[in-house]
C-alpha cells in the first residue's frame, strides 16, 4: 500500500486527538472515583473548615482550611515571582545585549528543570532556618517558606513567557515612540508595558496554574498542620500535600479514598480554569498585536 497524503494527515490527526482523549480520560477517571464520596459526605460538609477523616471522635471532611492553605501559598508566591519575572522579561527583551540574552534566557529556563524535590531540600535546609531567624520564630515550617520556594519554581514560567510577550511588541511601536523623542524608559513604560498587559496577565495565570499544582517541595516545608491558617507565618497543609500524604493509607474504594479524588477534582478544575483563561487571553493578545 502506498502511503498517501491522506494517511499522513490521519496519522497526525490521531496524534492531536490523543491528547484530548488523555485529558478527557483523566477528568472522567477523577469524576468516577470522586462521585461516590458524596453518598456519605454532603456538599456542606465537603466545604466545611475542618479536615480530619481519621479523627478519634468523628471524621470531618471540610476542605476549606486546606484550600485556603493552597491559596495563601500561591498568592504569596505570585506576589514575589510576578514582579521578578516581569523585570527579567523586560530586561531580556529590551535592554540586554544579544550576548547577555543568549546566556541569561537559558539560565532562567534551566531553573524549571531542577527537580522539585531538590528545591524542597534547599527550602528545608536553607530557607526554613532563614525564615525562622528573620521573623523570630522557633521554626520555619510555614506558608511563607513554602511560598518562597514555589516562587522560585514559577519564576521561569513567568519570566520566559513575559519575555516572549515583550518581544512580540512590533518594532514599529518602539521606533515610533523613540522617534517622537521619548526616552527608552518612557517607551518601556508608556508603550511596551500597556501593549503587553493582557500577555502579562496570561503569563501570571500560567504561573498560577503551576503554583497550585506544586506538591513535594511544599509538602516538605509547609508544616502540614490541619488548623485553619490565619497568616503567612502559620503552618499550612495545601490540597496537593494533603492528597500526597493521605493517599498512601487509604483503602481503595473507601470514602476517604473517594474524598481524596474529589479533592483532586477541585484542584484539576482550579488549574484548568486558570490555564483556559490564560490561553484565551494570550490568543486575543497575539491576534491584536499581529493585526
Amino acid at each position, binding site marked *: 500500500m502506498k502511503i498517501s497524503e491522506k494517511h499522513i494527515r490521519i496519522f497526525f490527526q490521531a496524534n492531536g486527538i490523543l491528547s484530548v482523549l488523555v485529558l478527557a480520560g483523566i477528568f472522567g477517571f477523577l469524576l468516577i472515583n470522586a462521585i461516590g464520596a458524596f453518598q456519605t459526605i454532603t456538599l456542606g460538609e465537603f466545604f466545611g473548615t*475542618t479536615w*480530619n*477523616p*481519621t*479523627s*478519634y*471522635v468523628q471524621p470531618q471532611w471540610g476542605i476549606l482550611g486546606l484550600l485556603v492553605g493552597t491559596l495563601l501559598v500561591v498568592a504569596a508566591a505570585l506576589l514575589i515571582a510576578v514582579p521578578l519575572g516581569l523585570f527579567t522579561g523586560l530586561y531580556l527583551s529590551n535592554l540586554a545585549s544579544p550576548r547577555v540574552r543568549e546566556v541569561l534566557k537559558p539560565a532562567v529556563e534551566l531553573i524549571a528543570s531542577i527537580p522539585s524535590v531538590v528545591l524542597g531540600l534547599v527550602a528545608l535546609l536553607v530557607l526554613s*532556618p532563614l525564615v525562622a531567624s528573620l521573623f523570630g520564630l*522557633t*521554626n520555619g*515550617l510555614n506558608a511563607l517558606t513554602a511560598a518562597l520556594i514555589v516562587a522560585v519554581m514559577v519564576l521561569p514560567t513567568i519570566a520566559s513567557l513575559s519575555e516572549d510577550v515583550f518581544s512580540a511588541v512590533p518594532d514599529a511601536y518602539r521606533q515610533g515612540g523613540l522617534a517622537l523623542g521619548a526616552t527608552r524608559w518612557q517607551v518601556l513604560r508608556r508603550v511596551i508595558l500597556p501593549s503587553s498587559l493582557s500577555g502579562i496577565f496570561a503569563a501570571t495565570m500560567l504561573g498560577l496554574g503551576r503554583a497550585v499544582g506544586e506538591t513535594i517541595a511544599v*509538602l*516538605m516545608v509547609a*508544616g*502540614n*498542620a*490541619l*488548623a*485553619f491558617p490565619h497568616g503567612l507565618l502559620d*503552618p499550612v*497543609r495545601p490540597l496537593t500535600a494533603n492528597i500526597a*500524604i*493521605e493517599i*498512601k*493509607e*487509604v*483503602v*481503595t474504594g*473507601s470514602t476517604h479514598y473517594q474524598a481524596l479524588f474529589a479533592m483532586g477534582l477541585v484542584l484539576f478544575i482550579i488549574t484548568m480554569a486558570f490555564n483556559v483563561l490564560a490561553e484565551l487571553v494570550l490568543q486575543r493578545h497575539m491576534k491584536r498585536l499581529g493585526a
Partner: protein
Amino acid sequence: MKRLLVALILSVLLIGCTASQGGAPAASNKLQLKGSDTELQMFAALAEEFKKTNADVDITVTGGGSGTGIAALINGEIDIADSSRPMKPEEIEKAKVNGIEPVEFIIARDGLAVIVHPDNPVGELTRAQVADIYTGKITNWKDVGGNDDAITLYGRQSTSGTYVYFRDTVLKADYASTMRNMEGTSAIVDAVQADKTGIGYVGIGYLTPEVKALTLEGQNPTDKAAVASGAYVLTRPLFQYTKGVPAKNGPTHKLMLFQLSAPGQKVVESTGFLQVTSADAAANEKQLARIG
C-alpha cells in the same frame, strides 16, 4: 561518534553483566515488606541477617507508615505489613472482603519517648500533662514548670501507627489541629533538636543525644529495664501481619521463624528495640502452629 558508540556498547554490556550477576530469583522467593517507619531499620537489619543463611530469598523492606503498609496488605500488593499498631477490626474486615486473612505476629517491643530540646528546663511530665499538651489544653511551657514560651507540637502524619497509638492510648481525643505533621520519625527528631519550644514523640530506637527524653510518671525511657518491665507507661508491641497463613517452609514462614528465634531477637535488640515478652512469644507460637 565512534568513541560514543564504543562507550554505549560498553555501558550496555556492563548493565547486562550486573543484571545477570544479581540474578532474578524465582518469583516465589520474593518477599515484599511495607509499613511502619518506626520498624524500618529493625526489619531491614533482620532481613539482612536472614539473607546470610537464605541467599535465595529476595526481601525488600519499605516504609511509609503503618497505615500505608496495612492499606497495601488489604489491597493485596505486599506479603507482609509492618505495623506499630494493631489492625483495626474494620481493616481486617476489608482484607477479608478482598480474600486476604491477615495473621498477626509480635516481633518486638518498643518504648515511646516524649522528647524536647535539651535546653528545655522541663524534664518530667505526667501522662495527663502530655495529653493536655497534645490536645491543645496546655499551650505554654510555663504551665508545666518551664519557660514562658508557646509550645510547638510536632507529630507524625495520620498514615503513622505511632500517630494512632499515641492518640488512642495517651490522648484519647483528637490532636490539636496546630500540630505540625512530619514525614517520619527522624523528621520529628530533627525538628525538636532545632526548636527550643518543641515537643515530639518517637520510638526509643530513634533517641539521639541532641534531644532530651522526658521522664513520664517517674520513669525514663532511656532506662531499658523500666521499658522492658512495663514500669515505663508508653510501651507497645510491634507487629507484622502476613498475607494469609504462610505456606509451610515458604519464605514468609522461614523469615518469621528466624525473626522470633534467639539470634533474630538479638538483632531486634541491636537496633534499639526490646525482645518480645513471654506472653507475646506464646501468642506467636499459636500462630505458627496454624502453619503446621
